[in-house]
Each structure stands twice: as structure tokens, then as C-alpha cells.
């Protein structure tokens, strides 16, 4: 009987391990590239005060926590991550808050922020209203390794208390990472140098936060954070015509692509006999559920109409977990 009980206990332990779980150790080796929300390379090294710069922002979650990691250089500077997840509380105006006042106004109500000065561990503050914050750091697990890698675990039940489900159905969490200066006049300072995602910084003045990263951990509306690693990538591809007549009416082939996950999209036109790439139509990031339109007009990368014959449209959609490749024929008549 005891043996059976131990087996059940063991199975419970093994199978109840949350998916996508991150160890808060200041190392990024348990994160994958799919978790990187700073997909746009323009955001890297875009700081006005280099080498201080936000280099990487990673997000994932499991059934218990939301995890955020930030790779940042900030010497003798602070960093604040502002969170917005509840429209009915918090404050849009943080110009009078008593802690870490960096003269920030936000288009979304800020419910929580994590603030840290270089070389320190930092604190979490709940925004009660525009003039009152509470230090609630003891609810969170977080670390700062080598003064540049921050890993934070935010329990869902702290972000969304008093819920019958783990989180509200269709919950959205918005956040923005800001580099901030020290206190300059009295007990406040300013956002300085860089934000991720990019916002217009009006140093030394009030900064209005308009751009946020948005995550949707419950897309299936069951009140439980989705295990997105189990999400199968569905890709819809529509090729308008298999015949392309560059001098005729049908002088282009439209290619429409829609996926349900954030992915990298590469579309190439190849000559099947030689395998030569005659044209790279697109090599770019593709947002989930965003219908993208591309076309090929029968010209190669040098603008010259290709020879008569059959070509292959090679469509590759991939992320760190999945790789989808599909070939479609198209014929150029000339």
C-alpha cells in the first residue's frame, strides 16, 4: 500500500512539473530563442547613451509564474520594468509616486513595476494610485547576475489575485523596459537613453509610454496559461496563380501567408534543375495571425525577367521549435 502511494506521489511530482519552467539563476541557458520578444534587430544598440543599452528581453510562462529575463548594460544607471495588466487599478500618471519617480506617464494604467539600480537586487512596487506604491518584493523570485542579466518570476496569483481561474480569461499583460537616470532634482529623475520596445524619450522631461510588449498567455480562454510549446503551427498559404505571364494580364503571382505563431518567414523562387535561387521574395519576421501578402513578378534579383519554364516557390516558416517547408510550382510563360 505504501509502495503504491509512493508511486502515485512520484507520478504526481513528475507529471505536475509545470511546462516552460525557468530556473531563476541569472543564466539564460534554459530560455530558447522563441522567448525573445525583441525580434526587431533595430532595437539592439539603439540607445542614446551607449554602451548602456537594453540588449535582450525574454518572456515565457508556466502554470504558476510569468517569467521575464532582461539582458541589459547599465552602469551607474537604473532600470525599471513597468507592467500593466488590470485596467481597473493602478495609475496612468506616475509623476508623483513616492518611489522611483521617473516622471513617467503611460497610456495604459501601470499596476506594478520592478526597479533596480546597477549592482543591486531591486524591488517590486505595486501601484495603488498616482501617489501611493507598496513594496511587495517578497512575493517574487528574482535575481541579478553580473549586473546585466535579470531573471524575474512573477506568480500569477499575485498579479491576478481573487480569481476562480489561474488568470482572467483572455488576459493580456503589457510591459515596457526603461533605462532610467538617478535622482536629479529632489526625489525624482527621468527615463534616459533606451526603452524596449522603443518609446520617444524626452529627457529631461516627462516621458509618455505608448509602446508596450503585449503577451497573451490564455489564447484558448480557459483561464489557464497556455502551454504554447504544444501549439502546433498552422500555416495557411494561398498562391493566386500557377501561371505567370510577365507581358500579359497575369503578370504576377500573389502569395498570401498566415500563421498562428510568431515565426520567421522566407520565400524564395528557385530554378528546380539547378537549384539556383532566382529571387528572394521575403526574409522577415512574421507575426502570429497577421495576413501577409507578397508577390513575384517573374523577375530575378537583378530585375530581369527569367527564362520560360517551371520554377518552385519555396516557402519556409520556422521558429526555434518547428520548421515548415512547402514547395509550390509556378510557370513563367514568355
Amino acid at each position, binding site marked *: 500500500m505504501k509502495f503504491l502511494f509512493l508511486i502515485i506521489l512520484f507520478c504526481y511530482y513528475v507529471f505536475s512539473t509545470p511546462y516552460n519552467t525557468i530556473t531563476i539563476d541569472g543564466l539564460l541557458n534554459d530560455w530558447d530563442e522563441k522567448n525573445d520578444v525583441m525580434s526587431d534587430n533595430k532595437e539592439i544598440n539603439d540607445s542614446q547613451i551607449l554602451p548602456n543599452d537594453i540588449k535582450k528581453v525574454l518572456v515565457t510562462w508556466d502554470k504558476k509564474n510569468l517569467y521575464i529575463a532582461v539582458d541589459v548594460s547599465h552602469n551607474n544607471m537604473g532600470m525599471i520594468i513597468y507592467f500593466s495588466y488590470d485596467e481597473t487599478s493602478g495609475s496612468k500618471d506616475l509623476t508623483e509616486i513616492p518611489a522611483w519617480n521617473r516622471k513617467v506617464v503611460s497610456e495604459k494604467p501601470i499596476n506594478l513595476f520592478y526597479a533596480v539600480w546597477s549592482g543591486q537586487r531591486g524591488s517590486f512596487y505595486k501601484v495603488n494610485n498616482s501617489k501611493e506604491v507598496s513594496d511587495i518584493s517578497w512575493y517574487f523570485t528574482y535575481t541579478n547576475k553580473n549586473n546585466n542579466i535579470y531573471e524575474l518570476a512573477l506568480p500569477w496569483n499575485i498579479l491576478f489575485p481573487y480569481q476562480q481561474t489561474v488568470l482572467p480569461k483572455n488576459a493580456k499583460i503589457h510591459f515596457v523596459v526603461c533605462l532610467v537616470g538617478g535622482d536629479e532634482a529632489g526625489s525624482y529623475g527621468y527615463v534616459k537613453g533606451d526603452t524596449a520596445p522603443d518609446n520617444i524619450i524626452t529627457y529631461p522631461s516627462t516621458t509618455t509610454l505608448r509602446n508596450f510588449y503585449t503577451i497573451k498567455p490564455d489564447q484558448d480562454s480557459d483561464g489557464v496559461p497556455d502551454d504554447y510549446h504544444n501549439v502546433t503551427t498552422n500555416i495557411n498559404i494561398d498562391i493566386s496563380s*500557377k*501561371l505567370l*505571364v510577365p*507581358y*500579359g*494580364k*497575369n503578370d504576377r503571382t500573389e502569395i498570401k501567408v498566415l500563421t498562428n505563431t510568431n515565426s520567421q518567414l522566407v520565400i*524564395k523562387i*528557385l530554378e*528546380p*534543375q*539547378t*537549384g*539556383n*535561387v532566382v529571387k528572394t521574395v521575403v526574409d522577415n519576421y512574421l507575426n502570429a495571425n497577421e495576413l501577409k501578402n507578397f508577390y513575384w513578378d517573374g523577375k530575378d534579383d537583378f530585375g530581369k525577367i527569367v*527564362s*520560360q*519554364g*517551371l520554377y*518552385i516557390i*519555396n516557402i519556409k516558416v520556422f521558429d526555434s521549435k518547428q520548421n515548415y*517547408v*512547402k*514547395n*509550390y*510550382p509556378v*510557370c513563367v*510563360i*514568355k
Partner: protein
Amino acid sequence: MRNKIIFTSLIFLTNLCFSYIDIFTPKIIAAGENFLTVSDPTFFNPANFLSQQKIVYFMYSNPYFTSGLNKTSISFSTPLEIGNLGVTASFYGIDVYKEWYFFISYGINYKNLSLGSKIKFFVINVDTNEEILVSNQSSVLGLDLSFCYNIKNFFVFLMMTNINTPEYKLIYQNVNKIEPGYVIGIRYDLYKNVKLFIEKQYNTGVSYGGEFLFTKNFCFRSGVNKYGKPCFGFGIETKRLDIDFSTKIDSVLGWDISFALGYKF
């Protein structure tokens, strides 16, 4: 006998040949697409197939698993009193664009020298309502000539394709030319069960490969084609059946798999 000589002469005199898309069989593809030096029942090189048996040979490929794209051919070849004769019908295309190829090949051997000729008839069919099309169908004739000279274990091949530079027109503004090609190749029979192939085509790279006969019935083929793509495959040969399989790997397009089945009688 007199008729056969006239027929052979006709083929050489006509000198019209033509090849647009190369529809190789798995035997050729697996050995690095060395179409000149690898002996093949479709008579791709008519100077290099001197079969002692009648054979019907069917091949199929869905190139790189491309949706709706098919490549297939069926051939019949037979030994004659003098030389060998082959007939092949091939198809390459999709539902709205079809390329048909019909070949008649003849090869003859005299001492160390083999000669071959292939008449090819090419038809393109396009399913569209475009007004600028001259016609929905265009056809053209062409001819290949090939030679082989054997010295000990070496076989030296030369082939000239599309010598007449066939032209066809699908739309009014443009004439499509099929440029002639010149290929030279060497086959070296290293051992009784090991054959090595190397070929060089005018203005393309060198292709090379080998065929290794492990047992009487099973052989492995491998090579690199003239575009640098690795190829491999195998063949199983029994008294009545020929089964061939090949794979060509492209870093972007993926795997191009072909298989073929031949029946000898």
C-alpha cells in the same frame, strides 16, 4: 536488313534533337546525374545502352515534393538484329502547364566504337486565356548525337544535344531558344563490380559518381551532380525486374526522390 539500314541513316541525317528539361531516371540521378556515362534503359545516351533483352521501364518523381508537380516517363527498348532501338514518352509539369517529350533512340556498336542518335519531339501545353499567347500549344523537334570509344577499361563518350538550336514561340513578343549542349564523359571500370563516372558539360561544372555492385542483384550508386548537389540511390536487378531508387539533395528545396520499375522479357 535493308530497311533497318535506311532507318538508321535517316536518324543520322535528320539530325534534329532536342532536350529541354532533363528527365533522368533514378539510375542516372543516383550516380551524380552522369547521363552520358551511365547506361540507362531510357536511352538518354543512345550510344550507351546495348541491351540484350527487351525492357519496359517506368519512372516517377514528384520533384522536391512540390505540390502538383510531376515528372514521369515510360520507355521501351529492344535489341535489333543490328543495334538497339528505344522509344520513350515523358511528362513534366503541373495541371495548367505540361511539357511532353517523345524520344526515338537508336544505338549501334562496331568493334570499339558505338554511335547513337535520338530524335526528340517536344510539346508544351498551356492552359490559360491570355490573349498574347500565339497558341496554347507549341511543339518543336530536335536531335542528339552521341559517340563512345572503348579502350581497355576506359569508355570515352561525347554527346551533342539540341544541335539545331530548336526554337518555339508561346507569346508574340518572344522566341524561346533551346541552346545546344556539348558533353564529354569518361567511364572507368575500376573493377568488375566498380564503375566510376565523370562528365563535363559545356559551361557547367563537372559531375562525378560511381556504381558499386555489392552482389549480383544489388548495387549502390552515389555521386555529385554538375551543380554540386549530392545524389545517391540503389538498384535491385533480378532476372525479370529492375528496381531503382534515387535521391538528390538540395539545401533549400529538400530531397528529390525518384523511383523506377523495369520489366524485362
